[in-house]
């Protein structure tokens, strides 16, 4: 397993091995949706925000 830093909160995000460019993962600390920009070495960026409805 490799790791990369979350661009939102700076926490380490553990990444599975068969990571693919374009994949979206969430940061376990801050919950940010992160897009895999590159895989070797892994680079993450904030995924385009889906304006999600959240009740009320």
């Amino acid at each position: 397993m490799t790791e990369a830093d979350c661009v939102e909160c700076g926490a380490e995000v553990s990444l599975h091995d068969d990571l693919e460019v374009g994949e979206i993962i969430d940061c376990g600390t801050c919950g940010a949706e992160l897009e895999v920009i590159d895989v070797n070495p892994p680079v993450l960026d904030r995924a385009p925000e889906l304006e999600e409805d959240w009740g009320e």
Partner: protein
Amino acid sequence: MTLEASVVGGSGFTGGELLRLLSGHPEFAVTQATSRSYDGKTVGSVHPNLRGLDLRFSDPTDLDSVDVLFAATPHGVSMEQIDEFEDAADTVVDLSADFRLSQESQYDEWYDGHVCPEYLEKSEYALPEINRENLPGADLIAAGGCNATATILGLKPLFDADILSGDEQVVVDVKVGSSEGGAGGGEASSHPERSGIVRPYAPTGHRHEAEIEEFLGLSVSFTVHAVDMTRGAAATCHVFPDGPVSKGDLWGAYRESYEDEPFMRMVAGGSGVYRYPEPKAVAGSNFGEVGFEVDPGNKRLVVFSAIDNMMKGSAGQAVHAANVALGFEETAGLDFAGLHPVGAP
């Protein structure tokens, strides 16, 4: 002579309240309630309290001619259909945000723009406590947002009495019930996920800030929490005025503003269980409660305000405004006192 009224969006939460209020109103007869999803079904199949009402939902594309049309649709619908609404009725009362603000630019900033900005100038804000004089004869009335209404009602007397001028720092911390989200609702408003919560649902940037700024001229630091009740909005305003203010000053200010208001109650201390405004003390009614306390150590005033979001915060306010606009008794159709005890109404 009874006026005919219709409700567009009659299957929703505030639409149901409008139907309840209008069908018990001495001056109105409800002739139409629209719903696309429940077209053809009885009103009582959606609103169980209205099982006695002999009325079925019909499609909103085919609007009856009425004296007054009430629209209780999501933001954006009324601005698209305002011409049809105006064709169908002499007076339109809209519960959405579509006609509350006066400038197109505000809709650009806070919403997704506006499709008929020419109506913004002519529409009147419904809240009689701040706009009574402009309502008589109005033909487009925009009921306020519930959190904005609670906040404005709480703070307005401080402006009337020159305790605030608009430059002061004010934090508004709001607590609201689940009906504010309207019927339907996704996972976050399912019972297991939503019960028992204190959930920051609008930490910053809530759209009602625009409305408060429009009507009080005050920029507020606004945060909204969802709590475990169905009806109710409670605003706690933490206010930092320039000079010292006594509790007597506050009583003077609030009495001056609200003493003659038929739906405003002041509650600020005393004995018993209910010593400050509480949403459950007004639930189901059109009353608003305001109260306050002074905190000299922190040079702070704390103002509490409580309403039923679907009554004073929307449907009740709309009917109140219509009463004023049409020259009816202000309290007509709005005389329900609320209940005690009541759980989480």
